[in-house]
C-alpha cells in the first residue's frame, strides 16, 4: 500500500518529519492513511475494539512525541515509515495485552522501543515497494510450525518459554523455529528479486510465488475473540 498518491501529496516521510516539527495536521493525515491498518493490528492482538482503539491512539500520540527519532535516510521507501508506525502500534498493543493478562513479570521489556526506532541500519533494510501480497506469500511459504511459533510470539505476546510450555515442545526447538522462520522470511523479502536471493537453497527461492491475495487473513483471528458488533441494517 504505497501512500505516495500523487505528485502533490506529501509522502509518509514528509508527514512524519512534519510531525517532528509539531504539525498536528500532519499527524491527522498520517492517521487517515494508516488508522485502519493500525486498528487491524491492535485488534488482532487485543481482540477488543475499545482497547484496540485506545492503543492506536496511544501509538499516534507516541508518534507525536517521538517523531524526531524517525530517520528518513536513505531512500524514501514508503514501507519504512509504515513499518515504523506499525512497530509502535505493535509494541503498544503487546504492552497493553501483557498488562491486562498480568504477564508482565518475566516478559521482555518493551521499553527499548526508542532504540529500535532510532537505529538506522534496521530501517535501511526495508525494501522499497514491499507490499502486502508479497509479505503474505512469503509467510505462507514458512513451515507451519515456524509460522505458528512466530504468530504466538508476535501476535499473542508469548515468550519462547510460554510457547514451549503451551505446545509441550522443547525450548531449543522453539528458539530454533523462531530464528529460522524469521531468517527465511528475511531471505524472501529483503531482496528486490526473491529468486536471486543469495544464500538461499534453490527450493526456497522457487517456492516464492505470488498467489492471488487470499480471502482469509494469513493469521486467523484468535479463537473466542469477540468480533465486531453486528449492527442490524
Amino acid at each position, binding site marked *: 500500500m504505497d*501512500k505516495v*498518491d500523487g505528485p*502533490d*501529496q506529501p509522502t509518509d516521510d514528509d*508527514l512524519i518529519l*512534519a510531525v517532528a*516539527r*509539531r*504539525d*498536528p*495536521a*500532519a*499527524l*491527522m493525515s498520517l492517521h*487517515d*492513511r494508516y*488508522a*485502519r491498518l493500525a*486498528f*487491524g493490528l491492535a*485488534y488482532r492482538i487485543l481482540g477488543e*475494539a*475499545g482497547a484496540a*482503539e485506545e492503543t492506536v*491512539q496511544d501509538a499516534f*500520540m507516541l508518534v507525536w512525541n517521538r517523531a524526531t527519532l524517525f530517520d528518513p535516510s536513505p531512500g524514501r521507501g514508503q514501507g519504512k515509515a509504515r*513499518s515504523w508506525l506499525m512497530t509502535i502500534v505493535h*509494541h503498544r498493543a*503487546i504492552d497493553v495485552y501483557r498488562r491486562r493478562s498480568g504477564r508482565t513479570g*518475566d*516478559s*521482555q521489556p518493551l521499553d527499548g522501543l526508542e532504540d*529500535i526506532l532510532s*537505529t538506522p*541500519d*534496521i530501517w535501511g*533494510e*526495508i525494501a522499497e515497494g*514491499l*507490499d*502486502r501480497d508479497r509479505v*503474505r506469500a512469503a509467510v505462507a511459504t514458512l513451515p507451519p510450525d515456524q509460522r505458528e511459533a*512466530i504468530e504466538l*510470539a*508476535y*501476535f499473542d*505476546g508469548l*515468550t*519462547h518459554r510460554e510457547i514451549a510450555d503451551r505446545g509441550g515442545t522443547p525450548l531449543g526447538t*522453539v*528458539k*530454533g*523455529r523462531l*530464528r529460522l*522462520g524469521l*531468517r527465511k*522470511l528475511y531471505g524472501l*523479502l*529483503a531482496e528486490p528479486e526473491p529468486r536471486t536471493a543469495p544464500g538461499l537453497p534453490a527450493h526456497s527461492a522457487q517456492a516464492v510465488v505470488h498467489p492471488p491475495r487470499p480471502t482469509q487473513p494469513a493469521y486467523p483471528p484468535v479463537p473466542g475473540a469477540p468480533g465486531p458488533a453486528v449492527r*442490524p441494517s
Partner: protein
Amino acid sequence: MMETQGSVNTLNGDHRAHQELLGAYALGAVGQDEARALAAHVAGCPACRAELTRLRFAAMVLPLTIDERVPPPNSRHRLEARLMREINGPNVEARPASPAPFASFDSGGRSIPPSAPAPPVAPHQDASPEPRDYPTWPARVEPVRRDRRDRQTWPDWPERPDWRAQPGQFGQPPAPPTPPTPSVSSVPPFPAWPVWSGAAAPPAAPPTPPGLGPGPGLAQGPGSSRSRRSPLAWITAVAVLVLVSAGLLVWNLDLRRDLDDRETAETADTIALQAAQSTAGARATMTYLNEADVAGVMVIALYGAPPPPENEVYQLWLVHDSVVIPFGIFDPTTAQCAVTLPDPSAYQQLVITREPGPFGSPSAVGPTIFVAPLGAA
C-alpha cells in the same frame, strides 16, 4: 594454554546460546534477564548485531499479514481532541486559537513552509485522496448545539435541578413503582420515539436582569428596624416591588420568546431522549449531524450525571432483539459519544451504564445510568 582454550569454548558457547535466542529477541519474546544479557552481548558482537538487524526486519513486516479494519467512527475525533489537549493543555478542547508556527499541509497536500502563515488546523480536510469508509467529524468544533442551560463543560459537572415536573410534583401523577432492573435488557421498552425537546423547552431560571435588582430601599441597613418605618416607606417598597415584578415578567417573556426562536432555528436536529430510567437526574440528547459527509452519524450527549469515578467510564449500548450491543465510550471531556446510527428506530432501547475504564466492558455489567426507549418496541 588449556585455560585459554577453555575461555574460548566458553565464549563460543555463550555466543551460540545468545545467537539461538535472537529470533525470540527480535519478536520481543524473551524474559527480562535474557533480554538484558542479549542486549549486552549484541552490543559487543558484530555478527549477532547484523543477524538481529535482519531478524527485526522480518518481524517488522508481519503487520502486513493482517487485514485492515475500520476503526470506530469517533476515533478520529477522539485522537484530534487528545492531540489538542496535548498541545494546548488539558482545559482546551478546541483547535489552537492561533495558527501553528510550524509547517502544515493544505488540503491538496502541498507543504507550507514554516515561515508562511500556516492555516488553522483543519484535520477534517483529509490530505489523503484515499477514500475513507468511515465518517469524519464535522468541521465545526462543537457539533452538538445545546440549549442555554446545558452549555457547560464536562469537568465542571454542576448539578442543576431538573426542570421537568417530577412525579407527584406540579400536579403530575405519582410515579409508578420502579421495577427492579437487574440487567439493562430487562428494562421494558417504551414505544415513544422520538420526543422533541423543543416542545418541552426548559424554563430558564429567571436570573436577575441588570438594573432590576433589589434596590437599597429594600435593604435593611444597620440601624433600620421595622418599628421605625413610616407608612411612606412601606408604600415606596411595595411600589418598587411591583415595578421589579413587572420588569421581571416582561423580561422573562421576552427571554422565553428569544429562547424559543433560537431552539427552533438551532436545535432542530437535537432531540431529548425520554428517560425510562435515570439515575441522579441524568439526561441525554441525540443529535443528528446533517452534513452530507457525516450522514448517519449521531452524537449522544449525556447531561446531569455525576462525573464517572476514576478508572470508570460511561458506556453506550443499544438494545436490538433483546441483545445489548456495545456502541461506544463517552468522551470524558465532552460527555459525548458519536455513533454511526442510520436508523435509531431499529433499536429498542438506548442504555448508558458505568463500566470499568478506560476501555469499557464487553457486556453491560455496571450500574445503569440512563435508559431511553427507541423505536423498535
